[in-house]
Protein backbone atom coordinates (compact mmCIF):
# COMPACT_ATOMS: atom_id res chain seq x y z
CA UNK A 1 0.00 0.00 0.00
CA UNK A 2 2.76 2.35 0.96
CA UNK A 3 4.46 1.71 -2.35
CA UNK A 4 1.20 2.41 -4.20
CA UNK A 5 0.92 5.77 -2.48
CA UNK A 6 4.57 6.52 -3.22
CA UNK A 7 4.06 5.77 -6.89
CA UNK A 8 0.89 7.85 -6.88
CA UNK A 9 2.82 10.70 -5.32
CA UNK A 10 5.54 10.58 -7.96
CA UNK A 11 3.00 10.35 -10.77
CA UNK A 12 1.19 13.32 -9.31
CA UNK A 13 4.42 15.25 -8.92
CA UNK A 14 5.16 14.60 -12.57
CA UNK A 15 1.67 15.74 -13.60
CA UNK A 16 1.74 18.86 -11.48
CA UNK A 17 4.67 20.08 -13.51
CA UNK A 18 2.79 19.12 -16.64
CA UNK A 19 1.32 22.15 -18.35
CA UNK A 20 -1.67 20.21 -19.64
CA UNK A 21 -3.01 19.77 -16.10
CA UNK A 22 -2.63 23.48 -15.53
CA UNK A 23 -4.27 24.37 -18.86
CA UNK A 24 -7.11 21.99 -18.12
CA UNK A 25 -7.68 23.61 -14.74
CA UNK A 26 -7.57 27.09 -16.23
CA UNK A 27 -9.83 26.08 -19.11
CA UNK A 28 -12.46 24.65 -16.77
CA UNK A 29 -12.22 27.62 -14.49
CA UNK A 30 -12.43 30.05 -17.41
CA UNK A 31 -15.50 28.32 -18.79
CA UNK A 32 -17.14 28.25 -15.35
CA UNK A 33 -16.50 31.91 -14.71
CA UNK A 34 -17.64 32.98 -18.17
CA UNK A 35 -20.75 30.86 -17.91
CA UNK A 36 -21.70 32.18 -14.49
CA UNK A 37 -20.88 35.79 -15.25
CA UNK A 38 -22.36 35.97 -18.73
CA UNK A 39 -25.78 34.92 -17.57
CA UNK A 40 -27.44 36.48 -14.59
CA UNK A 41 -29.34 33.28 -13.99
CA UNK A 42 -27.33 30.63 -12.19
CA UNK A 43 -29.39 27.70 -13.44
CA UNK A 44 -28.57 28.58 -17.05
CA UNK A 45 -24.91 28.56 -16.09
CA UNK A 46 -25.34 25.14 -14.56
CA UNK A 47 -26.94 23.95 -17.79
CA UNK A 48 -23.92 25.02 -19.82
CA UNK A 49 -21.63 23.28 -17.37
CA UNK A 50 -23.63 20.06 -17.77
CA UNK A 51 -22.49 19.87 -21.39
CA UNK A 52 -18.90 20.47 -20.36
CA UNK A 53 -19.13 17.76 -17.75
CA UNK A 54 -20.78 15.24 -20.02
CA UNK A 55 -18.51 15.80 -23.03
CA UNK A 56 -15.27 17.59 -22.25
CA UNK A 57 -14.49 16.08 -18.86
CA UNK A 58 -14.72 12.46 -20.08
CA UNK A 59 -12.75 13.32 -23.23
CA UNK A 60 -9.91 15.06 -21.43
CA UNK A 61 -9.84 12.44 -18.69
CA UNK A 62 -9.60 9.45 -20.99
CA UNK A 63 -7.20 10.97 -23.52
CA UNK A 64 -4.96 12.62 -20.97
CA UNK A 65 -4.75 9.51 -18.81
CA UNK A 66 -4.07 7.28 -21.81
CA UNK A 67 -1.33 9.55 -23.15
CA UNK A 68 0.20 9.80 -19.73
CA UNK A 69 0.27 6.02 -19.38
CA UNK A 70 2.10 5.70 -22.69
CA UNK A 71 4.50 8.47 -21.76
CA UNK A 72 5.17 6.66 -18.53
CA UNK A 73 6.00 3.40 -20.28
CA UNK A 74 9.74 3.70 -19.55
CA UNK A 75 9.09 4.87 -16.04
CA UNK A 76 6.88 1.84 -15.52
CA UNK A 77 9.64 -0.30 -16.98
CA UNK A 78 12.01 1.22 -14.48
CA UNK A 79 9.65 0.37 -11.67
CA UNK A 80 9.10 -3.13 -12.97
CA UNK A 81 12.79 -3.92 -12.61
CA UNK A 82 12.41 -3.13 -8.94
CA UNK A 83 10.79 -5.43 -6.46
CA UNK A 84 7.38 -3.80 -6.87
CA UNK A 85 4.21 -5.66 -7.70
CA UNK A 86 2.60 -4.75 -11.00
CA UNK A 87 -0.77 -4.23 -9.32
CA UNK A 88 0.76 -1.52 -7.18
CA UNK A 89 2.42 0.16 -10.12
CA UNK A 90 -0.88 0.39 -11.98
CA UNK A 91 -2.88 1.45 -8.93
CA UNK A 92 -0.23 4.01 -8.11
CA UNK A 93 -0.59 5.51 -11.57
CA UNK A 94 -4.37 5.40 -11.37
CA UNK A 95 -4.38 7.20 -8.05
CA UNK A 96 -1.82 9.74 -9.27
CA UNK A 97 -3.58 10.59 -12.54
CA UNK A 98 -6.99 10.60 -10.83
CA UNK A 99 -5.75 12.96 -8.17
CA UNK A 100 -4.30 15.35 -10.74
CA UNK A 101 -7.45 15.37 -12.89
CA UNK A 102 -9.75 15.47 -9.87
CA UNK A 103 -7.85 18.43 -8.49
CA UNK A 104 -8.10 20.19 -11.84
CA UNK A 105 -11.83 19.45 -11.98
CA UNK A 106 -12.58 20.38 -8.40
CA UNK A 107 -10.69 23.66 -8.70
CA UNK A 108 -11.82 24.47 -12.24
CA UNK A 109 -15.51 23.57 -11.87
CA UNK A 110 -16.08 22.69 -8.23
CA UNK A 111 -14.86 25.96 -6.79
CA UNK A 112 -16.83 28.29 -9.10
CA UNK A 113 -19.95 26.15 -8.69
CA UNK A 114 -19.66 26.30 -4.91
CA UNK A 115 -19.19 30.05 -5.14
CA UNK A 116 -21.96 30.83 -7.61
CA UNK A 117 -24.40 27.97 -7.16
CA UNK A 118 -23.97 26.36 -3.76
CA UNK A 119 -27.16 24.31 -4.12
CA UNK A 120 -28.02 20.64 -4.11
CA UNK A 121 -27.90 20.83 -7.91
CA UNK A 122 -24.42 22.32 -7.74
CA UNK A 123 -23.21 19.60 -5.41
CA UNK A 124 -24.74 16.91 -7.63
CA UNK A 125 -22.99 18.49 -10.61
CA UNK A 126 -19.63 18.36 -8.87
CA UNK A 127 -20.15 14.82 -7.64
CA UNK A 128 -21.25 13.57 -11.06
CA UNK A 129 -18.35 15.27 -12.85
CA UNK A 130 -15.89 13.92 -10.36
CA UNK A 131 -17.21 10.37 -10.67
CA UNK A 132 -17.04 10.67 -14.47
CA UNK A 133 -13.42 11.85 -14.20
CA UNK A 134 -12.53 8.81 -12.12
CA UNK A 135 -14.36 6.32 -14.31
CA UNK A 136 -12.83 7.66 -17.50
CA UNK A 137 -9.35 7.51 -15.98
CA UNK A 138 -10.18 3.93 -15.05
CA UNK A 139 -11.32 3.19 -18.61
CA UNK A 140 -8.16 4.88 -19.88
CA UNK A 141 -6.06 2.49 -17.78
CA UNK A 142 -7.78 -0.41 -19.51
CA UNK A 143 -7.30 1.17 -22.93
CA UNK A 144 -3.62 1.83 -22.30
CA UNK A 145 -2.74 -1.67 -21.16
CA UNK A 146 -4.66 -3.29 -24.00
CA UNK A 147 -2.17 -2.32 -26.67
CA UNK A 148 1.49 -1.35 -26.82
CA UNK A 149 1.10 1.04 -29.65
CA UNK A 150 0.60 4.58 -28.40
CA UNK A 151 -1.32 5.81 -31.44
CA UNK A 152 -3.59 2.80 -31.31
CA UNK A 153 -4.10 3.22 -27.58
CA UNK A 154 -5.14 6.84 -27.97
CA UNK A 155 -7.36 5.81 -30.86
CA UNK A 156 -9.08 3.26 -28.65
CA UNK A 157 -9.48 5.87 -25.92
CA UNK A 158 -11.15 8.35 -28.27
CA UNK A 159 -13.32 5.62 -29.71
CA UNK A 160 -14.46 4.64 -26.23
CA UNK A 161 -15.29 8.27 -25.56
CA UNK A 162 -17.32 8.40 -28.78
CA UNK A 163 -19.05 5.21 -27.77
CA UNK A 164 -20.08 6.42 -24.34
CA UNK A 165 -21.04 9.97 -25.25
CA UNK A 166 -22.57 9.56 -28.71
CA UNK A 167 -22.79 6.16 -30.36
CA UNK A 168 -24.40 4.53 -27.37
CA UNK A 169 -27.22 7.08 -27.24
CA UNK A 170 -27.85 6.65 -30.93
CA UNK A 171 -28.10 2.94 -30.32
CA UNK A 172 -30.57 3.51 -27.47
CA UNK A 173 -32.67 5.76 -29.68
CA UNK A 174 -32.70 3.11 -32.37
CA UNK A 175 -33.89 0.53 -29.85
CA UNK A 176 -36.59 2.90 -28.65
CA UNK A 177 -37.96 3.31 -32.15
CA UNK A 178 -37.47 -0.28 -33.24
CA UNK A 179 -39.28 -1.74 -30.23
CA UNK A 180 -41.76 1.08 -29.79
CA UNK A 181 -44.67 -1.36 -29.42
CA UNK A 182 -43.20 -3.03 -26.35
CA UNK A 183 -43.00 -1.70 -22.83
CA UNK A 184 -39.55 -0.17 -22.77
CA UNK A 185 -39.33 1.57 -19.41
CA UNK A 186 -37.38 -1.16 -17.67
CA UNK A 187 -34.98 -2.00 -20.54
CA UNK A 188 -34.21 1.68 -20.98
CA UNK A 189 -33.52 1.92 -17.27
CA UNK A 190 -31.00 -0.90 -17.56
CA UNK A 191 -29.48 0.58 -20.73
CA UNK A 192 -28.95 3.81 -18.85
CA UNK A 193 -27.15 2.15 -16.01
CA UNK A 194 -24.77 0.53 -18.49
CA UNK A 195 -23.34 3.86 -19.59
CA UNK A 196 -21.68 6.09 -16.98
CA UNK A 197 -22.26 9.24 -19.03
CA UNK A 198 -25.98 8.55 -19.38
CA UNK A 199 -26.24 7.72 -15.73
CA UNK A 200 -24.54 10.94 -14.70
CA UNK A 201 -26.71 12.86 -17.15
CA UNK A 202 -29.97 11.42 -15.78
CA UNK A 203 -28.91 12.17 -12.22
CA UNK A 204 -28.31 15.78 -13.28
CA UNK A 205 -31.55 15.97 -15.28
CA UNK A 206 -33.49 14.91 -12.21
CA UNK A 207 -32.16 18.04 -10.59
CA UNK A 208 -32.41 20.44 -13.51
CA UNK A 209 -35.40 19.24 -15.50
CA UNK A 210 -37.45 17.90 -12.64
CA UNK A 211 -40.62 19.40 -14.12
CA UNK A 212 -40.27 17.39 -17.31
CA UNK A 213 -39.31 14.30 -15.39
CA UNK A 214 -42.52 14.41 -13.41
CA UNK A 215 -44.50 13.69 -16.56
CA UNK A 216 -45.11 10.43 -18.43
CA UNK A 217 -42.31 7.94 -18.14
CA UNK A 218 -40.03 10.55 -16.62
CA UNK A 219 -41.73 9.81 -13.34
CA UNK A 220 -40.40 6.27 -13.53
CA UNK A 221 -36.82 7.49 -13.72
CA UNK A 222 -37.53 9.91 -10.96
CA UNK A 223 -38.92 7.16 -8.76
CA UNK A 224 -35.95 5.01 -9.60
CA UNK A 225 -33.04 7.43 -9.51
CA UNK A 226 -34.51 10.25 -7.48
CA UNK A 227 -35.01 8.41 -4.20
CA UNK A 228 -32.41 7.74 -1.54
CA UNK A 229 -32.29 4.13 -2.68
CA UNK A 230 -31.90 5.32 -6.26
CA UNK A 231 -29.00 7.55 -5.25
CA UNK A 232 -27.28 4.60 -3.59
CA UNK A 233 -27.82 2.44 -6.68
CA UNK A 234 -26.61 5.21 -9.01
CA UNK A 235 -23.54 5.85 -6.92
CA UNK A 236 -22.81 2.12 -6.75
CA UNK A 237 -23.11 1.73 -10.51
CA UNK A 238 -20.79 4.71 -11.07
CA UNK A 239 -18.38 3.20 -8.56
CA UNK A 240 -18.50 -0.03 -10.58
CA UNK A 241 -17.54 2.04 -13.60
CA UNK A 242 -14.50 3.17 -11.68
CA UNK A 243 -13.55 -0.18 -10.18
CA UNK A 244 -14.30 -2.73 -12.90
CA UNK A 245 -12.28 -1.25 -15.78
CA UNK A 246 -9.40 -0.78 -13.37
CA UNK A 247 -9.57 -4.40 -12.21
CA UNK A 248 -9.68 -5.59 -15.81
CA UNK A 249 -6.68 -3.38 -16.53
CA UNK A 250 -4.79 -4.90 -13.62
CA UNK A 251 -5.60 -8.41 -14.82
CA UNK A 252 -4.37 -7.56 -18.30
CA UNK A 253 -1.29 -5.75 -17.01
CA UNK A 254 -0.26 -8.64 -14.78
CA UNK A 255 0.21 -11.02 -17.67
CA UNK A 256 1.55 -8.41 -20.04
CA UNK A 257 5.07 -8.26 -21.48
CA UNK A 258 6.86 -4.97 -21.20
Amino acid at each position, binding site marked *: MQVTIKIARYTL*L*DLLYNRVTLFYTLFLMGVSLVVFNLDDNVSKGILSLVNIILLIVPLVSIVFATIHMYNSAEFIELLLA*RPIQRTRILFGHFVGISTALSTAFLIGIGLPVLLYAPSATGITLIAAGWMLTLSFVSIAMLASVSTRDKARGIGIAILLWFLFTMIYDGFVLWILFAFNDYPLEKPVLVLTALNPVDLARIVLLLRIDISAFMGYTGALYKDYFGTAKGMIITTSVLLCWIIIPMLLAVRRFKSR*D*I
Partner: protein
Amino acid sequence: MIRIRDLKKSFGKLQVLRGISLEMHAGQVVALIGPNASGKTTLLKCILGMVVPDSGVIEFGGKPVNKEVSYRKHIGYMPQIGRYPENMRVRQVVNMMTDLYPNGADMDTELAEAFYLQEMDQKFMRTLSGGSRQKVSAVLAFLFDVPVLILDEPTAGLDPVSAEVLRQKILREREKGKLIIISSHVLSELEGIATDILYIADGQVKTYQPIAELLKETGTNHTREAIIEIMNRHAGNH
Protein backbone atom coordinates in the same frame (compact mmCIF):
# COMPACT_ATOMS: atom_id res chain seq x y z
CA MET B 1 22.50 -17.96 -8.62
CA ILE B 2 20.29 -17.86 -11.69
CA ARG B 3 19.07 -21.07 -13.22
CA ILE B 4 16.95 -21.17 -16.37
CA ARG B 5 15.32 -24.31 -17.68
CA ASP B 6 13.73 -24.70 -21.08
CA LEU B 7 12.54 -21.12 -21.33
CA LYS B 8 10.16 -20.46 -24.20
CA LYS B 9 8.51 -17.30 -25.31
CA SER B 10 6.76 -16.17 -28.44
CA PHE B 11 5.21 -12.88 -29.39
CA GLY B 12 2.32 -13.87 -31.54
CA LYS B 13 3.64 -16.20 -34.23
CA LEU B 14 7.20 -15.10 -33.67
CA GLN B 15 9.13 -17.50 -31.48
CA VAL B 16 11.68 -15.40 -29.66
CA LEU B 17 13.03 -17.87 -27.14
CA ARG B 18 12.97 -21.51 -28.14
CA GLY B 19 13.99 -23.41 -25.08
CA ILE B 20 16.85 -21.77 -23.23
CA SER B 21 18.52 -23.57 -20.36
CA LEU B 22 21.54 -22.24 -18.50
CA GLU B 23 22.98 -21.41 -15.12
CA MET B 24 24.87 -18.35 -13.94
CA HIS B 25 26.83 -18.03 -10.75
CA ALA B 26 28.31 -15.41 -8.53
CA GLY B 27 31.65 -14.14 -9.78
CA GLN B 28 30.74 -14.53 -13.43
CA VAL B 29 30.63 -11.64 -15.83
CA VAL B 30 28.49 -12.94 -18.65
CA ALA B 31 28.73 -11.17 -21.98
CA LEU B 32 25.36 -11.65 -23.66
CA ILE B 33 25.80 -11.27 -27.38
CA GLY B 34 23.95 -12.16 -30.49
CA PRO B 35 22.57 -10.67 -33.68
CA ASN B 36 19.76 -8.16 -33.59
CA ALA B 37 16.39 -9.65 -32.64
CA SER B 38 18.05 -12.76 -31.33
CA GLY B 39 16.18 -12.61 -28.03
CA LYS B 40 18.84 -11.02 -25.80
CA THR B 41 16.65 -8.31 -24.33
CA THR B 42 13.72 -10.71 -24.04
CA LEU B 43 15.89 -13.08 -22.02
CA LEU B 44 16.98 -10.27 -19.71
CA LYS B 45 13.42 -9.10 -19.34
CA CYS B 46 12.33 -12.62 -18.50
CA ILE B 47 14.91 -12.70 -15.73
CA LEU B 48 13.64 -9.33 -14.49
CA GLY B 49 10.02 -10.48 -14.67
CA MET B 50 9.07 -7.90 -17.24
CA VAL B 51 8.25 -10.48 -19.84
CA VAL B 52 6.14 -13.42 -18.78
CA PRO B 53 7.48 -16.62 -20.38
CA ASP B 54 5.18 -19.11 -22.09
CA SER B 55 6.86 -22.03 -20.42
CA GLY B 56 10.00 -22.92 -18.57
CA VAL B 57 11.34 -22.06 -15.16
CA ILE B 58 13.61 -19.28 -13.94
CA GLU B 59 15.06 -19.75 -10.49
CA PHE B 60 16.80 -17.04 -8.57
CA GLY B 61 18.78 -18.24 -5.56
CA GLY B 62 17.01 -21.58 -5.80
CA LYS B 63 13.46 -20.18 -5.89
CA PRO B 64 11.21 -19.86 -8.94
CA VAL B 65 10.50 -16.24 -9.78
CA ASN B 66 7.08 -16.43 -11.42
CA LYS B 67 4.95 -14.95 -8.63
CA GLU B 68 7.34 -13.47 -6.11
CA VAL B 69 8.81 -10.03 -6.84
CA SER B 70 11.10 -9.59 -3.87
CA TYR B 71 14.05 -11.33 -5.56
CA ARG B 72 14.42 -8.23 -7.70
CA LYS B 73 15.80 -6.32 -4.77
CA HIS B 74 18.98 -8.28 -5.35
CA ILE B 75 19.27 -7.06 -8.93
CA GLY B 76 20.56 -3.76 -10.26
CA TYR B 77 19.28 -3.08 -13.77
CA MET B 78 20.43 -0.63 -16.37
CA PRO B 79 18.03 -0.46 -19.32
CA GLN B 80 19.08 0.05 -22.91
CA ILE B 81 17.22 3.34 -23.11
CA GLY B 82 16.44 4.92 -19.77
CA ARG B 83 13.49 7.25 -19.89
CA TYR B 84 12.30 8.95 -16.78
CA PRO B 85 9.44 11.20 -15.70
CA GLU B 86 10.20 14.22 -17.81
CA ASN B 87 9.25 16.77 -15.23
CA MET B 88 11.36 15.46 -12.41
CA ARG B 89 14.80 16.66 -11.50
CA VAL B 90 17.74 14.25 -11.48
CA ARG B 91 17.92 14.41 -7.72
CA GLN B 92 14.23 13.63 -7.45
CA VAL B 93 14.57 10.59 -9.69
CA VAL B 94 17.46 9.23 -7.66
CA ASN B 95 15.62 9.93 -4.43
CA MET B 96 12.51 8.34 -5.81
CA MET B 97 14.29 5.12 -6.73
CA THR B 98 15.85 5.04 -3.28
CA ASP B 99 12.48 5.74 -1.76
CA LEU B 100 10.74 3.00 -3.71
CA TYR B 101 13.20 0.38 -2.61
CA PRO B 102 11.34 -1.56 0.01
CA ASN B 103 14.26 -2.55 2.24
CA GLY B 104 17.29 -0.40 2.64
CA ALA B 105 20.22 -2.19 1.07
CA ASP B 106 23.61 -0.51 1.40
CA MET B 107 23.90 2.57 -0.74
CA ASP B 108 26.73 2.83 -3.20
CA THR B 109 27.36 6.42 -4.30
CA GLU B 110 30.72 5.76 -5.84
CA LEU B 111 29.51 5.96 -9.43
CA ALA B 112 27.32 8.98 -8.73
CA GLU B 113 30.37 10.81 -7.49
CA ALA B 114 32.53 9.60 -10.34
CA PHE B 115 29.95 10.95 -12.82
CA TYR B 116 29.76 14.26 -10.90
CA LEU B 117 26.04 13.65 -10.73
CA GLN B 118 25.54 16.39 -8.18
CA GLU B 119 26.42 18.91 -10.91
CA MET B 120 23.26 18.06 -12.75
CA ASP B 121 21.31 17.31 -9.62
CA GLN B 122 18.77 20.07 -10.15
CA LYS B 123 18.35 19.62 -13.89
CA PHE B 124 15.05 18.36 -15.23
CA MET B 125 15.15 14.97 -16.86
CA ARG B 126 13.64 16.41 -20.04
CA THR B 127 16.66 18.69 -20.50
CA LEU B 128 19.23 15.90 -20.29
CA SER B 129 21.10 14.55 -23.32
CA GLY B 130 21.05 10.86 -24.16
CA GLY B 131 24.47 10.41 -22.58
CA SER B 132 23.47 12.15 -19.39
CA ARG B 133 20.40 9.98 -19.11
CA GLN B 134 22.58 6.95 -19.59
CA LYS B 135 24.69 8.17 -16.68
CA VAL B 136 21.57 8.44 -14.54
CA SER B 137 20.61 4.90 -15.56
CA ALA B 138 24.05 3.63 -14.60
CA VAL B 139 23.99 5.40 -11.27
CA LEU B 140 20.57 3.91 -10.52
CA ALA B 141 21.73 0.41 -11.43
CA PHE B 142 24.72 0.63 -9.14
CA LEU B 143 22.94 2.60 -6.44
CA PHE B 144 22.63 -0.36 -4.13
CA ASP B 145 25.18 -2.93 -3.22
CA VAL B 146 23.33 -5.88 -4.76
CA PRO B 147 24.74 -9.27 -5.79
CA VAL B 148 23.42 -9.25 -9.38
CA LEU B 149 23.77 -6.56 -12.04
CA ILE B 150 22.01 -6.65 -15.39
CA LEU B 151 23.32 -4.09 -17.87
CA ASP B 152 21.64 -3.72 -21.24
CA GLU B 153 23.98 -1.91 -23.66
CA PRO B 154 25.58 0.05 -20.82
CA THR B 155 28.02 2.25 -22.72
CA ALA B 156 25.80 3.19 -25.66
CA GLY B 157 25.73 6.98 -25.80
CA LEU B 158 28.39 7.52 -23.15
CA ASP B 159 31.43 9.61 -23.93
CA PRO B 160 34.79 7.69 -23.82
CA VAL B 161 35.71 9.08 -20.40
CA SER B 162 32.43 8.11 -18.83
CA ALA B 163 32.48 4.75 -20.59
CA GLU B 164 35.84 4.13 -19.00
CA VAL B 165 34.54 5.19 -15.57
CA LEU B 166 31.71 2.72 -15.95
CA ARG B 167 34.07 0.03 -17.12
CA GLN B 168 36.24 0.53 -14.07
CA LYS B 169 33.18 0.36 -11.87
CA ILE B 170 32.11 -2.91 -13.43
CA LEU B 171 35.57 -4.31 -12.84
CA ARG B 172 35.45 -3.30 -9.18
CA GLU B 173 32.06 -4.94 -8.78
CA ARG B 174 33.47 -8.06 -10.42
CA GLU B 175 36.18 -8.14 -7.77
CA LYS B 176 33.45 -8.31 -5.13
CA GLY B 177 32.29 -11.57 -6.65
CA LYS B 178 29.02 -10.36 -8.12
CA LEU B 179 27.15 -11.89 -11.01
CA ILE B 180 27.12 -9.34 -13.83
CA ILE B 181 25.26 -9.82 -17.09
CA ILE B 182 26.16 -7.39 -19.87
CA SER B 183 24.39 -7.29 -23.16
CA SER B 184 26.41 -5.39 -25.73
CA HIS B 185 27.13 -4.80 -29.35
CA VAL B 186 30.31 -2.94 -28.59
CA LEU B 187 32.63 -5.86 -28.46
CA SER B 188 35.64 -3.89 -27.32
CA GLU B 189 33.97 -2.89 -24.08
CA LEU B 190 33.71 -6.52 -23.10
CA GLU B 191 37.44 -6.91 -23.45
CA GLY B 192 38.98 -7.65 -20.11
CA ILE B 193 35.66 -7.58 -18.31
CA ALA B 194 33.73 -10.63 -19.33
CA THR B 195 34.55 -14.00 -17.90
CA ASP B 196 32.02 -15.86 -20.00
CA ILE B 197 30.43 -15.55 -23.40
CA LEU B 198 26.74 -16.30 -23.89
CA TYR B 199 25.93 -16.25 -27.55
CA ILE B 200 22.26 -16.38 -28.46
CA ALA B 201 20.81 -16.67 -31.95
CA ASP B 202 17.36 -17.68 -33.15
CA GLY B 203 16.21 -17.88 -29.57
CA GLN B 204 18.64 -20.59 -28.67
CA VAL B 205 21.92 -20.73 -26.79
CA LYS B 206 24.60 -21.29 -29.43
CA THR B 207 27.59 -20.92 -27.22
CA TYR B 208 27.97 -20.50 -23.49
CA GLN B 209 31.52 -20.93 -22.23
CA PRO B 210 34.30 -19.18 -20.32
CA ILE B 211 36.38 -16.74 -22.33
CA ALA B 212 39.63 -18.48 -21.50
CA GLU B 213 38.29 -21.70 -22.97
CA LEU B 214 37.03 -19.86 -25.98
CA LEU B 215 40.31 -18.09 -26.64
CA LYS B 216 42.05 -21.42 -26.55
CA GLU B 217 39.52 -22.97 -28.86
CA THR B 218 39.64 -20.18 -31.43
CA GLY B 219 43.32 -19.55 -31.05
CA THR B 220 43.05 -15.80 -30.63
CA ASN B 221 44.24 -13.41 -27.93
CA HIS B 222 41.37 -11.02 -27.88
CA THR B 223 37.87 -11.52 -26.69
CA ARG B 224 36.70 -9.45 -29.61
CA GLU B 225 38.19 -11.72 -32.19
CA ALA B 226 36.93 -14.77 -30.40
CA ILE B 227 33.41 -13.37 -30.48
CA ILE B 228 33.57 -12.57 -34.15
CA GLU B 229 34.84 -16.04 -34.77
CA ILE B 230 31.81 -17.50 -32.99
CA MET B 231 29.44 -15.25 -34.82
CA ASN B 232 30.88 -16.26 -38.17
CA ARG B 233 30.75 -19.89 -37.20
CA HIS B 234 27.06 -19.73 -36.47
CA ALA B 235 26.30 -17.48 -39.36
CA GLY B 236 27.79 -20.13 -41.58
CA ASN B 237 25.34 -22.66 -40.24
CA HIS B 238 22.39 -20.74 -41.58
